[in-house]
């Protein structure tokens, strides 16, 4: 069974009296373990699609099935719980909590899902931080980290709870090209090591190289769905 299925998903924003169709009928199936890039110019509907998948917003019509669960059957609390346990988010602007250290930002995510004691969770947090290359920076606050380091914390935060799906909305858009490469390589590495399903969006054609699968989105419709040679089905 596929991890994620979108069927004819439409989203129309209401701007005063004007209707803005952001998604105009998306059909999509994503398998477990896939590393998918959503590529499209600004305003094409990437963010909107990821928000629908991430249960942050509801489609105007159509249905989304996540892990065998119809999202429209869930209430607010159900959606929150689904996000909490199964979905990790990475945003362009990192969205770390400024009062918490790198360690605590990651710890926050795991403490929400894992009721083990602080001590027992410590290894997990330290491991993932080492894995994303933040050894020795655990005690730093976000304002003491570079953009690339912040995004690594965000990746660690998204991954630490071992979610079924990680959604990354233009995660490298704020980073210089070298850092951006490093961050993307890190995501690929985590996808390979942990088998976590990734969907990430970008408007940068260079970035697509990292994907196993590339979706091109234009004006709220998927215009192309290519599978790269590195994609291995299991």
């Amino acid at each position: 069974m596929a991890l994620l299925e979108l069927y004819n998903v439409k989203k129309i924003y209401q701007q005063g009296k004007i209707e803005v169709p952001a998604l105009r009928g998306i059909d999509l199936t994503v398998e477990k373990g896939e590393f998918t890039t959503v590529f499209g110019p600004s305003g094409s509907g990437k963010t909107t699609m990821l928000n629908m998948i991430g249960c942050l917003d509801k489609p105007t019509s159509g249905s989304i099935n996540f892990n065998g669960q119809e999202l429209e059957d869930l209430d607010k609390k159900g959606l929150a719980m689904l996000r909490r346990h199964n979905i990790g988010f990475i945003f362009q602007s990192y969205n770390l909590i400024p009062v918490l250290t790198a360690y605590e930002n990651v710890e926050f995510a795991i403490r929400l899902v894992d009721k083990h004691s602080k001590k027992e969770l410590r290894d997990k947090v330290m491991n993932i931080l080492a894995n994303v290359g933040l050894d020795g920076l655990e005690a730093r606050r976000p304002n003491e980290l570079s953009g690339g380091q912040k995004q690594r914390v965000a990746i660690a935060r998204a991954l630490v709870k071992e979610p079924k799906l990680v959604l990354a909305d233009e995660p490298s858009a704020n980073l210089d090209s070298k850092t951006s490469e490093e961050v993307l390589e890190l995501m690929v590495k985590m996808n390979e090591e942990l088998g976590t399903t990734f969907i990430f969006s970008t408007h940068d054609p260079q970035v697509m190289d990292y994907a196993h699968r590339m979706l091109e989105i234009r004006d709220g419709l998927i215009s192309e769905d290519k599978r790269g040679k590195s994609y291995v089905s299991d």
Partner: protein
Amino acid sequence: MFLTKLAFKNLIRHRNRTVVTAIIIAFAIFIFILMDSMIGGMTEMSYNNIIDYEAGHLQLVNQKYWEAEEELPLENLMVVNQQVMTKTENIQGYQASSPELNFSARLNNGTNELPVIGKGIIPNRLMQVFELQDQFVVGEMFSPGEYKAVMGKRLADLLKLDKGDYITLLVKDKNETFNTIDAEIAGLLHTGNPNINNNIVYLPLDIVQQSLNVDNQVSKVIVRLENKDLALGVANQLENNLKAINDNWSVYSWDELEAVSVAGAKEMGNQMILAIILLIAAIAIINTVILAALERMKEIGMMKAMGLQRKEIIYTFVLESTGIGILGGIVGLILGAFGVWIFTIYGIDFGTIMGSNIEMASFGIPVIGKMYGVWNPESFLLVFSFGVIVSFLSSILPAYWAASKDPVEAIYHS
């Protein structure tokens, strides 16, 4: 627990804002404690003024007289015999007693006239019950049987009278017949009780009884006890004892006086201040929560994306605000304690504050001169809990507003 930690970190995140909000709350609490101490001191002082100069601790009186006392009638007077005195002297904590015969009169200096309250008293017994000994500005107390009078300096000034001058009191006796009492001024008083200073003329009891034609009757007997807390308990017991002699006897304790219940209006004042504090604290907290929420929109969005529920986000804000309330409360208590401490030691001189010639009496408060604060631990507890509870409650609504923000809005459009 993590959310608690987060709330605490948020609390110290904007030290300035936290401190300012806490200071506002602290200041409100400080003012309340000071006001409470002052009102308490004022009440205490007015109680003492009433007890020390007017009412004593107990009043032995005919119940019917008590009910009509305003008019100072010459009916329903009582005779104080040996039996009554023995029973009275035997009560717990008895110190002294003084019979008095009260009457309304017009005080005349030869040209002008003022309405006054006359009191026929036995000098040495009056001085044992009331604190008049050191209050003489000029002269001294008269002796029994002398045609002499003592009155307030202020009253004397109004009629341009001085020691040695002669006065005439125009009275109506028991049979409604006009009569006069002529007396020489033996001394002038200035006490802490404006009523005594402005309205009262003391005369020897025997002379008054004769002029009013009331034989050996008196209006009441004032009793002084060792301390005022004994009064209420002893009053009942003595009343029962006296009723065995004459069923008309009643005994009233000082705190049953009307003047005392007026002083009880302090409660009202306190509630007003409490309401104002509540408002100040609430506004400060609401303002702080809204500012914090606006500034943390992205975080709130992220927390929602991470799957936090609304109530969990509300919790962090409410906890933070309660923390500010507790902080402000503690500082307020410390400041308040310090203020009250100063206040109980040094007091406030109303004369210097309000200009030398204004007496608190003009405001219906029988207080003259320096006033000291009192400790009231209950009010410390009350206002602290109030501050914390208000901080807690007033943060709920803005926190709810913040936590209800749409996550997409919060993350992308702030």
